[in-house]
């Protein structure tokens, strides 16, 4: 009954708004002279986008109540290149909405954390908003060409963000990132073209492809191409080498976005394009996927233990956590798929917060080296507590989002009772211990212990840092304490995907 008045507003729900708002923000930014106004506009734009996402969530519930189960809601389709079968086809389902909520929160936090960027501020915020536009478009697209378009739109902003505003070996890292991500895109392109020409009916449309039965031989070739291509974005072993340098050399907001959202582009792509459209391929290649993702989880965890630099620690830890996503995708059960999406959302929020806190610490201590820090709890209590919270989330403490996601993945993985998946599940569970080791050791060294003299005069968090942390922490806590609404959001979509996979 509370949604009655919304029934009329639902007719106005135009998902293209999610593309117009960031685009308008970005273009408007370029015209403003006053730098402070630039920051405010960027913040306002991202906050508006977040409210739109929340609004979309309620509209989605309404629409679901109205028309029941459907593949996609609020679809829009316009002809783009009709002779090639390319159309501007957008729409949302539960998974898209979850990812868009994640993106909007991370972007707000990123904009806030970059408040004090002095060098070429306007271009920085322009590139950041452009990056978010690429992410939103990617999650909305229902046409493979459009999906690829938005995936590629994001590459150059990342390159410029790392190369211009980064630290350390930034030019090398930026190059490595751009080239490896393009390599992934190249493989995705070949997979998409394979689907276009060989799926029976030439077209790039996902709804059309989902209805066709792609021949098995085609699936056997296109699935690895697509999965590996998207896997490069999600740090599939052995294509993960861009992650440590890329994340560590990036500016804080860049790292937050890269680890928080960009790696999820790959996971979403694997789910929506590779597993969904090519179910026979997903089943045929489930075992290699499980093996590679388990290696990523364990190798990532052990490599993290060796890291002395906080950012590198978080980067390798991201490899490990994103391995969980792909592990869930390889298990081929409904719960595992739901868990994979949950892990995408949870890890996105968590790693963004982690990078934000690291950014705060680095700005004050001018070092990311763990052994050089200590006793920060005395001078920066708020930031230190945040570090502890995010560390707990990373190792899966109940009450925070990490536990929800990992628990779901493990439950789903256990349901698959073949030998290899069982062994993989056990190994992955054991990696949690390794996670605990490195988190507790790193966080403990940084936060507790004797305080060095040079750090006596450090200030605690400033207003924009508090804002960024609040936004992300809100997401983590809501997801950790009351994940029901999120699971209810994701489940119907994964149910549909599982139906297609279990069909023949």
């Amino acid at each position, binding site marked *: 009954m509370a949604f009655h008045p919304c029934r009329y507003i639902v007719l106005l729900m135009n998902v293209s708004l999610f593309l117009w708002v960031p685009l308008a923000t970005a273009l408007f930014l370029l015209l403003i002279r006053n730098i402070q106004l630039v920051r405010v506009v960027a913040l306002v734009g991202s906050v508006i986008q977040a409210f739109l996402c929340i609004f979309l969530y309620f509209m989605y519930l309404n629409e679901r109540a109205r028309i029941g189960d459907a593949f996609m809601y609020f679809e829009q389709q316009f002809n783009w290149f009709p002779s090639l079968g390319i159309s501007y086809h957008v729409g949302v389902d539960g998974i898209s909405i979850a990812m868009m909520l994640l993106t909007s929160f991370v972007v707000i936090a990123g904009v806030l954390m970059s408040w004090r960027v002095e060098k070429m501020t306007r271009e920085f915020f322009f590139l950041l908003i452009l990056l978010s536009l690429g992410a939103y478009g990617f999650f909305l697209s229902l046409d493979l060409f459009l999906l690829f*378009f938005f995936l590629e739109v994001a590459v150059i902003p990342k390159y410029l963000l790392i190369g211009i505003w980064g630290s350390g070996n930034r030019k090398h890292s930026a190059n490595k990132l751009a080239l490896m991500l393009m390599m992934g895109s190249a493989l995705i392109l070949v997979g998409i073209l394979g689907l276009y020409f060989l799926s029976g009916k030439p077209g790039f449309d996902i709804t059309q492809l989902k209805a066709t039965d792609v021949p098995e031989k085609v699936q056997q070739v296109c699935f690895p*191409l697509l999965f590996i291509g998207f896997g490069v974005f999600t740090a599939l072993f052995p294509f993960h080498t861009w992650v440590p340098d890329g994340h560590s050399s990036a500016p804080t907001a860049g790292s937050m976005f890269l680890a928080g959202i960009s790696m999820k582009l790959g996971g979403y792509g694997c789910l929506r394009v590779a597993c969904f459209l090519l179910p026979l391929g997903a089943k045929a290649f489930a075992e290699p996927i499980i093996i590679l993702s388990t290696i990523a989880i364990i190798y990532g965890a052990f490599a993290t233990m060796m890291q002395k630099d906080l950012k590198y620690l978080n980067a390798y830890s991201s490899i490990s956590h994103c391995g969980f996503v792909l592990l869930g995708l390889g298990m081929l059960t409904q719960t595992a798929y739901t868990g994979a999406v949950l892990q995408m959302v949870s890890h996105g929020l968590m790693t963004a917060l982690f990078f934000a806190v690291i950014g705060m610490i680095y700005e004050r201590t001018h070092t990311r080296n763990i052994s050089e820090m200590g006793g920060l709890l005395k001078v920066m209590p708020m930031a230190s507590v945040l570090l502890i919270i995010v560390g707990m989330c990373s190792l899966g403490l109940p009450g925070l989002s990490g536990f929800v996601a990992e628990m779901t993945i493990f439950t789903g993985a256990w349901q698959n009772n073949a030998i290899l998946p069982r062994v993989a599940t056990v190994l992955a569970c054991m990696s949690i211990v390794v996670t605990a080791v490195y988190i507790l050791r790193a966080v403990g060294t940084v936060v507790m212990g004797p305080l060095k003299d040079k750090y006596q005069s450090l200030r605690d968090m400033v207003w924009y840092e508090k804002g960024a942390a609040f936004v992300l922490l809100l997401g983590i806590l809501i997801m950790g304490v009351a994940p029901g609404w999120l699971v209810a959001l994701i489940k119907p979509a994964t149910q549909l995907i599982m139906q297609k996979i279990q069909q023949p």
Partner: protein
Amino acid sequence: MSLEYLILLKAELQICLLIFFLLLLKITRTIPNEKLLPLIQLLLLANFVGGCFYNQSGDLFDGMFVSNKLIHLQKHILSLAVYLISLLFSGWFRRCLHLTEFFVLMLSALLGMYFLLSSGNLLIFYLSLELATIPIAAMANFELTRKRSAEAAMKLISSAAFSSGILLFGISLIYGTTGSIRFPEIPLLLDGSALQVMAFVFLVTAFAFKLSIVPFHLWTADVYEGSPAAVTAFLSVVSKGVIAFAFLTFLYKVFQPFNSIWYHILMLLSILTIVAGNLFALRQQNMKRFLAFSSIAQVGFIVVAMMGKSVESITAITYFVLIYVFSNLAAFGVMEIVAQHTGNENRNALKGLYKSNPLLSWVLALAMFSLAGIPPTAGFFGKLILITAGASTASYGFIIFVALNLVVSLYYYLLVVKNIFMDDAIEPLEKIPISGSAKLGLVVCAAGILLVGIFSWIYDYIAEQV
């Protein structure tokens, strides 16, 4: 000659009028370059606009001259390119000693290219190809005091002459074995004998030379480096564009029965071209040589598209040439402005450009992104549509190879972007003064790069004409 004939020849007559007008102007009065250049730009703009109206299809002179909608569109793209060249290189043009002669030569080459596009038999084809090449050799030598220019011109004319000789041999063999020189009749008379295949290979060789396909590309880098930038731009954009169009007509209309033969030839040539273009471009420090090898790699992608089915390939290549006009001219324009100002043609001159010259930096960055194939620039759509057209008949391995080469090409385009945005200047660069017409040219190119891709009605418009 009735009015109908004149209208069919409209584009060519416009160019002839321009040439005669410029010659008369030169003979009767002396006008300083500052006044002459805007006049020429205006005339070229009028030529471009005039190409929009009264386009008719038909045959002339018993099939020697052919005109249809697609040919009109292709000529239109070339006239746009020439107009943009006159805008972008105004700095050099103002200092040029023999401005009228330069444009007379350029317009003569353009006239030859128009006839090349409209040719209906092998004789007029050869004649117009010669008319399209020889003036460029004279233009290449236009910086009379530089030794490099003379070297470039010599290399161009001697290798062009040699390839013309081979082309003539091929043409004579075709005539000898089929008994006809007319394009509509030749495919009906081909019987696949060894002599005909050899003649076909000679003809492909001539095209490959003009298009700088590996291994016939050895003239490209030195000629591009030695010629003045306006000539390099003309060579790389207009000349390549017209030869690509002519090659298409050749493959899909005249030598259609040899489809299975030229498919494999093209596959081999495209692999060689893309690899050689990419590998050599990685090492280049001189900006013009860098753009030379990058255009070789682009041509490799065009050859990939030629392997597909006729309708999609022709549409894809015409669309790509339009986008290539904008991207490449923007790149040449900015690089020439920087090189003229700093006196340094090396890529190092671009370091730290962003701090003092944001407009130039963004235009060059956009051009690089477009050449690399990054959305939302038009180059992304162009490259993708090229690969889609070529992929319809190709194998997985070949397409994976082509796609991975996109990554390699991205690397060297990003080197330029890195120089502009991330490196610090060797000597402090002040703001470079750009003339109004150059600015207009840069803005038009940038607008073209940004808009031609997303506004897809251009692609559909081209598809309709085919």
